[in-house]
């Protein structure tokens, strides 16, 4: 469930929509090298994957279950630019087609998930990868930490928005404790699943892992002149 309408006031929502738009403009620019109109099918299937993987529940305990947010995972697999575009498309579609998340709150969610979630996850991943020795298990450890840390940071984004323009009466410290507390737990699940999933992709098609090669695979096509 994403942020509904009326939870954060309009000036704050508009400001974050502006930041989100700027972020998307940058992502479009950044993705240009890896992505043009011709490769839209690849990015589109990545978005589909994120959408589907968010429906994949993993059991936690006593009948409760969680699901992946997928920001860090997508960033590691297809690169942060394409990942943030794909995640934004997913959020827009969820709001317009499934009424999941308010239309006026779209900028807030895009900021938290497509910008913070993706970039913090990817940043941590790159940082950890730099520190650790260069081998495949380091990739998994880096993916774990990326996933783990990205989730509470995305939650902190929400707390920031709540602190600026929240309409509720819970104090900021109450919201901070509740959000960060639960999201550290969610982050552990996110981290473990992201690491295992990246590990599994590495085992069979390491060429598809952007965070491993440092560049996305360019599909070679030869045209008869």
């Amino acid at each position, binding site marked *: *469930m994403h942020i*509904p*309408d*009326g*939870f954060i*006031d*309009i000036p704050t*929502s508009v400001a974050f929509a502006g930041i989100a738009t700027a972020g998307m403009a940058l992502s479009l620019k950044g993705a240009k090298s890896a992505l*043009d*109109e*011709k490769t*839209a*099918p*690849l*990015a*589109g*299937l*990545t*978005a*589909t*994957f994120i*959408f*589907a*993987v968010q429906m*994949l*529940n*993993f*059991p936690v305990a006593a009948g409760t279950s969680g699901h*992946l947010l997928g920001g860090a*995972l997508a960033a590691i*697999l297809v690169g942060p630019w394409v990942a943030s*575009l794909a995640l*934004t*498309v997913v959020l*827009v*579609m969820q709001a*317009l*087609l*499934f*009424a*999941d998340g*308010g*239309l*006026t709150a779209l900028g807030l969610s895009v900021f938290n998930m497509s910008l913070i979630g993706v970039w913090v996850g990817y940043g941590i991943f790159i940082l950890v990868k730099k520190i650790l020795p260069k081998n495949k298990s380091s990739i998994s450890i880096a993916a774990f930490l990326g996933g783990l840390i990205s989730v509470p940071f995305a939650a902190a984004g929400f707390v920031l928005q709540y602190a600026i323009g929240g*309409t*509720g*009466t819970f*104090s900021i410290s109450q919201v901070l404790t509740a959000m960060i507390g639960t999201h550290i737990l969610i982050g552990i699940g996110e981290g473990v*699943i992201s*690491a*295992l*999933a*990246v*590990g*599994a*992709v590495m085992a*069979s098609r390491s060429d*598809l892992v952007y965070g491993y090669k440092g560049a996305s695979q360019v*599909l070679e*096509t030869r045209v008869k002149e």
Partner: protein
Amino acid sequence: MVHSLPSHLKIIAVLFFVLVVVSTPITYWPAFVIFLTLVVSAAIAGKIAIPTLAKRALIEIPFIFFAVLMPFFGTGERFELGPLNLYRDGLLAGLSIVAKGTLGVLSAVILSTTTTAREILRGLERLRLPTIMVQIASFMLRYVNVISDEMERMKIARQSRGFDATGVKHWKVIATSAAALFIRSYERGERVHLAMLSRGFDGELPHTEAKSVGTRAWLIALTIPTLALITSISFQMIG
């Protein structure tokens, strides 16, 4: 009538309406009764059954829990309501979140039930969403069923091998499935891409010429948000 409106007008109308609703303070509660009436009349004009509308609005429930807790934990003035001892500010804030959130969800549901996904994409295109994002979205819509079927098949395959996910020890299996799903999605993307290239795709998707939008369509689309705006302003003027 609602179905045939151009989709970008509907998106604008919903956005405009929700902006008005969210900007209206909850203390002018009669305005919210009128907002709800407007939403319901739009649903009736769009021939949406009210139970359908209500059922699809259930997605909001997690936030309602949050709002329901608000009157019980807080600070400030308290008052008795039957057996309950509530915080006035908390009650108002909770009501505001529920009322505005519900109106937002209801309008979005009206938009999505009266507009096909393809039309919504066309609307976004006309609202100048970058082409590449529209294309990403259109591929997503086209393949979302294929990919979720793929996921379902993997689930059935797991179950037929006796797998039952009960706890943390099963995460590896779930994660491996996610990885397989990624590889399958990505490889499908590659195949689609190659198939399109071999059919002469050059980055431009075929378009049907967009119809120009008459004043009448604008008037119809903006009726409800304008009525909402007038309601909101007049209640705030009266105080």
